[in-house]
Each structure stands twice: as C-alpha cells, then as structure tokens.
C-alpha cells in the first residue's frame, strides 16, 4: 500500500518535472482548430486557441509545482516556525506575541489578492509570486500551529530541554514539531492547493509567469467547458492527483516515525 503511494507520488513528480521533454507539441503553438475534442487533435484535444491540451499540461506542471510547492513550503514553513516560536516564547512574555503575531494578524487582514498585487508591483517575477503566495499563507499556518503547539508546550520533556539550554531550532524542530506534525501537514496539504489557485489568479490578472501553468489552464478553459470539457478536467484532475499523492506521501512520512502520537 505504502509502496503504491510512493510509486504514484514518484510518477506524478516525474511527469511534472520531465513533462516538457516528452510533450509532443510546444506549449504555445496552435496545432489545430480550437476546442477540438480528444483524438481529433492531440490526446486531450485542443484549448480555446487550438493549442494541444496534453502538451500544455506537460509543460505547465513544472512551473506550477515549483512555484506553488515552493510558495506553500516557504509560507507554511515560516508560519509553522512563527507559530511554534511564539507558543514557546510567549509564556510570561507578552511582547513576543506583540512582535511576532500581531504583524501576522495585520498581514492576515489584507486580502490575499491585494497582497499578491502589491508584491508583484514591487517584484514582478516568479520570486514575487512565490513571496506573495507565501506571505498570504503565513498567518493562518502560524495560528493553527500555535494552537496545536499550546497543547504540547507544557510537557516535561520540553521543560527539560529548556533547562538544558537547547537552541530554538532544537526546541521547535525536535521537541514540539513532531508532536504537532499531523496538524501541520494537514495545513500544508491545503496550502499547496491554495497556492496553485492564487498563482492562477495572478495569471488571470495578467501577472502570470508561465504560459501554461495548470491553474491558468483551468481559468482559460472554463468558458469553453461546454465545448471541450477535457481542457478543464485534465488540469483539475492533474492538480487533484498531485495534491492527493503529495498528501498521501506526507501522511506516510508522518506515520513512519514511530511514536505514541498520531
């Protein structure tokens, strides 16, 4: 079972990373009439500009994965760190909360799409998208992690480690994180999908980075869904597949480290 999961996950990653090499057509060139059904032109038919949906799918995987996964990882990572840190440091020190969590509240209060627009105005490239998406996922990740960590902090082994003078890295990463891992991973899985669509939204607003990002494929295919459903369903299924396999893999990873909790 686990092996199957890993194989699936590996295949998905391979397809995404090496897709452009095996794609039959370029991502942007029209190869047939628009909205051609599968079979008549290309494996999955063509999109609204007559471009090969299958090839665009293969081309768009890597930028989608890189941008979204990176953004989700950075955002979740920063959020988890902030959440763990404040949970640990704020006992008896209210300023820690004031300094670390309140700004995050402020960030959370600015709608993600505005964050995206602002960051991209300053940094109009892929790094900007990654940063913007990461920024918008930090606050909630931090909160969720903090709430979960609060329940673990008082345990004696954390106190012993504190008394030993452990570094923050050890305290957060080794003493607390493993005990809140299941919550954090659940959060990360969703962050990833959210990142995919925020990146797509950026593409929709004319701020995209790749010509065939999967999220953008969906947005573009939507109006023509009645004519060529495959152009819509294929990227949706692709994202679902990546999301499900990535989450299964991380679940398996979490279960592998034995222990009393989850």
């Amino acid at each position, binding site marked *: 079972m686990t092996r199957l999961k890993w194989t699936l996950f590996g295949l998905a990653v391979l397809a995404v990373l090496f897709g452009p090499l095996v794609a039959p057509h370029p991502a942007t060139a029209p190869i047939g009439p628009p909205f051609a059904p599968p079979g008549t032109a290309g494996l999955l038919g063509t999109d609204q500009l007559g471009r090969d949906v299958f090839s665009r799918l293969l081309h768009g995987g890597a930028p989608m994965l890189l941008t979204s996964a990176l953004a989700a990882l950075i955002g979740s990572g920063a959020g988890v760190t902030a959440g763990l840190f404040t949970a640990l440091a704020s006992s008896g020190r209210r300023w820690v909360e004031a300094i670390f969590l309140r700004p995050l509240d402020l960030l959370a209060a600015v709608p993600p799409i505005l964050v995206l627009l602002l960051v991209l105005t300053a940094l109009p490239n892929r790094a900007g998208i990654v940063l913007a998406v990461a920024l918008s996922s930090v606050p909630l990740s931090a909160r969720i992690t903090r709430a979960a960590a609060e329940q673990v902090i008082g345990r004696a*082994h954390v106190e012993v480690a504190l008394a030993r*003078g452990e570094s923050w890295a050890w305290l957060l990463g*080794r003493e607390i994180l493993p005990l809140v891992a299941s919550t954090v991973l659940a959060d990360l899985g969703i962050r990833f999908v959210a990142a995919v669509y925020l990146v797509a939204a950026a593409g929709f607003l004319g701020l995209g980075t790749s010509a065939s990002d999967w999220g953008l494929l969906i947005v573009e295919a939507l109006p023509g869904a009645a004519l060529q459903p495959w152009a819509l369903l294929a990227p949706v299924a692709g994202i679902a597949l990546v999301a499900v396999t990535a989450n299964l893999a991380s679940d398996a990873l979490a279960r592998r480290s034995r222990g009393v909790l989850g």
Partner: protein
Amino acid sequence: MTALVEVRDLRLLAGGRPVLAGVDLVLAEGESVGLVGASGSGKTTLALAVLGHLRSGVRHGGGRVSVRGKDMLPTPAPGVRGGTIGYVGQDPGASLNPYARISSILLSAAGPTPRAARAGRVRDLLGRVGLPREDAFARRYPHQLSGGQQQRVVLAAALAREPRLLVLDEPTTALDLVAKAEVLREIRRQTETGVALLWVSHDLSTVRELVDRVVVLDAGKVTEDRSAVEVTAAPAVPVTRAAAREEDRAIVLSGRSLAASFGERAILSDVDFDLHRGACLAVLGVSGVGKSTLARCLAGLHRPKSGSVLLHGTALAPGVRGRSTAERAAIALVAQNPAEALHPRQDVRTALSRPLRRLRGITSRSAQDIEVTRLLEAVRLPSALASRLPGELSGGQRQRVALARALAADPEVLICDEVTSALDTATQAGVLDLLAELRAELGVAVLLITHDPWVAASASDSVLVLASGRAVASGPTAGLLPVGEDPEKLVTRLLVSPITEGVLPA
C-alpha cells in the same frame, strides 16, 4: 469461589521479543493478589491484558484472558471496563483529560448520576482518596494539581462505579505516607466488602498489608505464586549515609527566601537551604506542598516570586534562558512524571546523547555511544534499550532513562523529583547506591525530593521539611529522622502541621 479473571498461557510480543511468555493467573471473586517483579518484568503489560488492552506495539501471541468466562482478547467483553473492573494506570498525570475539570472526570467515570446527587457524589469520591471534599477543588483542572493529587483523582475515578475488581498499577508511587495510608485504608475497605484486587507494586510492605496472594513476574514469566505471608519481609533499605561531615565542604547551591506562586495562589514562601558539595539534601513534604515547584524554581523553569537561587554563592538568573551553559550544566533536573519527561518520538539514544552534545560538548558519534552505554549501565538498564522509544519502555525503565539523561550533563547538583517512587525495592536501592557513588566519587550534590521518610532517612545527610509552603524544619537527617522511629508518628510529627492538604487556601 468462582474465577473472576482467568489468564491462560498468555503470550504477548513486542518488537519480536516476548513481553509475557506464557503467563497463567487466576483471580477468584473477592481475592486480592499482588503482582510484583523487577521493573520491566511485564507487570503493567499483564494488568492491561486483564482489561483486554494491548499497548501499541504489543501483539497477542497466544493464550487467552477471560473475565467471568468472557474473552477479553482481541476485543474486550462489554461492560467489563469501568463496570466489573476499575483501573488505575501507572502514569497519573498523563491519564487525566487536560480539558476536563476534576468533577467532570469523576462524574463521567461514575456514569449517569442524577443532577442533584452529583456534587455529593464528587465530594464523596474525593474524600475516599483523601482529597479535600471541596467544590473549589473539584472545579480545578488536572494541571492545577500536584503529582500525588492527580494520582488520587485517577484512583477515585476507578472507584466510581463500584467495580468488582480493582486493577491498580503502582497507585501510590507519588503519595506521601499520610496520603498513602488514607488510600490504603480505602482500598482495604473495598477488599473487605468483597472487591477483588490486582495490586501491582514494588512496595512489598503495601503488598503484604493488602493481599492474600503474591504473584512474582520475572522477564515475562511467573516465577512464584504463593500466599502473602510467605513473602519475606522487605529487604532493609541499605543505609548509605555518607560519613563525611558536610560543614567541611563548600556550598554549591543555596536558596534564599524563595517564594513561588501560581497566579494569585501562593505555594512557597521563605524557603532557605544550603546544599554542600557531595551532600544530599532531602526535601520532604506531603503531596501538593510545593516540592516540585521548588525544584522547578531551582532549575529556572518557574520564576520565583521573590528570593534568589545561588550557585557557588552567585545569584542565578531566575529564568533558564538567562543562565550560561556552565550554569545550566551544573543543575540537572529529573522531572517527576516519567511519562511526560521523555519525548514520545525520540529514542533513548537521542534523549541521552543530546545533553552530552549540548552540555558536555561530546560530538563524535562513537564517543556518544560509549557514554550512552555507560549511562544506561549506571542506571542498570541494558544497552539494547538505546534504540527504543519511550512508549516501548516500562514505567520504571522510563524513570531510569530520565535519570540517566540528567546524569549525562555531568552535573554538580542533581535534583531528583521522586526518582525512586516508580522503582521496585532492588532497583530503588540500586539507584540510591548510584547517587551515593556519584556524591562520593564526583562530589555531585543531590537534592532528593521525596515523600518517603525512609528514602530520605537512608539516603540524605540533611533534610528540609516543607509544610504549608514553608520550611518547617531543617537540619541533619540523623537528628530529624532517627532510624527506628515509627513512620506514622514521624510523619505526623514532621509533616502534618496545620493544613493537611498542603495547599495554601486559594
């Protein structure tokens, strides 16, 4: 008498090793049986099996367990748990739901109770285990109780449904003599009304007092099964009192008018003490008096409200973050609750090598491994345990791993919070021996927190007695705890001054 519990050729495996290797045990209605054996011999595993529960990682390898003729493995017969059998586990702190008040824990254990009768029922249960019969107390949450109070709440919950059999796994380890006496009295009352008892303990005196029959486990096998009177008297605790006079030696750690509180509630006030190099100071006091709180203040985990902690005459920062590595290495704490003291996802090797690296700068893997083996040997654990996770250890084993971890820092002062309470007499003696050795050879000073005057008498050279949050007596052990004084009297004389519960009014 009909058989209440019947265990036949029970084999349980954990990680490929047998934990129980063909155990037979029959318990008749109303019969009291003591289950003894060295730490790690399988007592807890057997007790849980009686309830039809296997800890995670433990597999059923054959044999059967039945209660009143109904099989308990693989799935327990309905109505047995909580109904026929009341259970108290070895780790009281971890057993309590942190989100429930004491009253609600007790009421949910008691089953449906008419609204009007609830408060009375809770008070009754608290009283039976020697806890204050106050509504204010019942409204507290588990984290607001001391270790001993938690343990008694768990016991009260087990009694709540008038079970026919009590399976009690070391239910008095965290209790001082007064509390223990009260608890034992309640249990005796239960057995007298025909409740059967499976009493897991290493404390032979309680065993003799309570049970008709003793079953001895060794490495997962029953080696003896005979009537209680035949069991030899407890081996005397070896007296290892150090010969040297402490006045000759330098003061390592001292407390000056320490006071501590939880929010508004004052716990300690005006505590003074001096701990000399190589000496052992026993801190004695009833459950809930603030012993653990004192230990946490010394280790920098609880900010004292006032007063100071001095190491070699210099005041230490109140918080551990403010202390230097050397200062932190100098004071090592062995926490009271072994279940929570070890990280559930870290194996023993990691737990031990971490202080080696942090506080002693031993970074090479091979050097660490040698030290880990040495430390495990020092606490009398096989080195094979190094790769296990805490969940795969017995209660006593965990306790010793926690001790070994404290020793790994090579401390000048070792604060031991009830380190011996979860250990059988032989292991307990071994640990006390070890402490004596450390003191003699390395000059380590030991602050021994205990509720057991015998342990204090046998291991310390001076005693600090806490009552109602103050040091009510202090001085050389020989003077305060004369060998041979009746323990009950001793306790009454020393500890049970004005407020029994030991908590200052909220």
